[in-house]
């Protein structure tokens, strides 16, 4: 057993006490974690380190002896990522262990300067590795969080709305990529079957840009709907987007396009054999006058 591991065993409580003291004096987030929790975490972590250093190698923490330490580090950094700590704060939790360990080493090995340098280097390397592991775990947790939010957004951003008997609307918000097209297509086709709709209006007012890829995805959705026996109308094409579509040479000739959702809805009603009439239709000539006034 190396000298460092021996010191870890013998002075476990002292080192943890020094560590906690150092941390409470440093700029710590008292709003996010209590002193008691912090103390408990450091005691648990250091006990695991002392146990692992007894049997495992001190230069590599990927071995099976260090599994417990790695698990504790991962869970600490995962919980901190969720609590809203910054990566720096999370890593400094582990890095702040250097100070008490080094001062303890200096005290114990004052008579052996060469050994002291060796052990200090080993201790620093070990703590650096643990800090890196913490950062990595922190990032993984954050990435999982982002991925989950992306998924949520994907589901939220593709509602299929029933406007009338046999008429659906699909307001698309945001850029259409392959993954989203798949979700949009599936939910549109599913709703077409469920509601027995003959016409679907795809409103692209919320689509910031239309390039060849987005257009291809739109065409795919429209073709799939046509195969099922439903007709699609594209609405909400802005002037700039109309220009882009023509410049890119995208062929939308076979597709009905309308500039406003209202126009598309009027056409859809007409196709399904319905009309919208004014309430006071008794005075037919008045209706046109009203129309002029408005």
């Amino acid at each position: 057993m190396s000298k460092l591991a021996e010191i870890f065993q013998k002075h476990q409580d002292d080192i943890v006490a020094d560590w906690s003291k150092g941390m409470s004096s440093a700029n710590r987030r008292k709003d996010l974690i209590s002193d008691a929790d912090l103390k408990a975490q450091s005691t648990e972590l250091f006990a695991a380190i002392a146990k692992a250093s007894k049997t495992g190698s001190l230069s590599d923490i990927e071995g099976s002896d260090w599994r417990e330490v790695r698990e504790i580090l991962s869970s600490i950094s995962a919980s901190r990522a969720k609590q809203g700590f910054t990566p720096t704060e999370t890593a400094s939790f582990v890095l702040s262990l250097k100070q008490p360990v080094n001062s303890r080493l200096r005290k114990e090995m004052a008579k052996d300067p060469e050994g002291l340098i060796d052990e200090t280097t080993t201790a620093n390397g070990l703590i650096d590795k643990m800090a890196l592991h913490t950062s990595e775990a922190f990032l993984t947790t954050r990435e999982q969080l982002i991925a989950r939010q992306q998924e949520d957004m994907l589901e939220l951003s593709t509602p299929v709305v029933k406007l009338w008997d046999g008429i659906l609307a699909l307001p698309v918000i945001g850029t259409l990529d392959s993954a989203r097209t798949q979700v949009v297509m599936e939910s549109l086709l599913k709703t077409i079957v469920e509601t027995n709709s003959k016409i679907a209006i795809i409103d692209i007012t919320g689509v910031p840009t239309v390039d060849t890829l987005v257009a291809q995805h739109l065409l795919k959705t429209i073709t799939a709907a046509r195969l099922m026996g439903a007709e699609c109308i594209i609405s909400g094409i802005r002037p700039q987007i109309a220009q882009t579509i023509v410049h890119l040479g995208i062929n939308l000739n076979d597709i009905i396009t309308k500039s406003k959702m209202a126009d598309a809805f009027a056409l859809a009603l007409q196709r399904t054999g319905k009309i919208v009439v004014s309430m006071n239709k008794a005075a037919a000539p008045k209706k046109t006058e009203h129309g002029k006034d408005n």
Partner: protein
Amino acid sequence: MERIPILRMGSFLLVTIQVDMHDQLAMTLQDDLTSAIAKFEARGVLIDISSLEIVDSFIGRMLANIAAMSRILDAHTVLVGMQPAVAITLVELGMSLPGVRTALNVESGMELLHALSESPEETEADGAAEN
């Protein structure tokens, strides 16, 4: 040998595909259907594929072929009840079945067939445009 039944309803033919299509079955259907159109002088063919859950490019092409053959024999083809998954598969395979008319269910398919056979001029113009 397994066959897909072809039912006659007035001047229309009704084909309901309720089993998994394999290539031989598709070829037999193609044969039977073209002979039936000629024999009954049918004006329209309605193919119900609501129970069809798996398609490949061969079946897709077979459906397009049947529609093209019926058109030559002066009958309109309406494909009804395609499942969403089937539609997505066909689109991903790059088969948009141009020239095949589609409807959501048998009811609207029959309406479409009636409309098509009642306005011959319009449909001829349609056919010309599609060719």
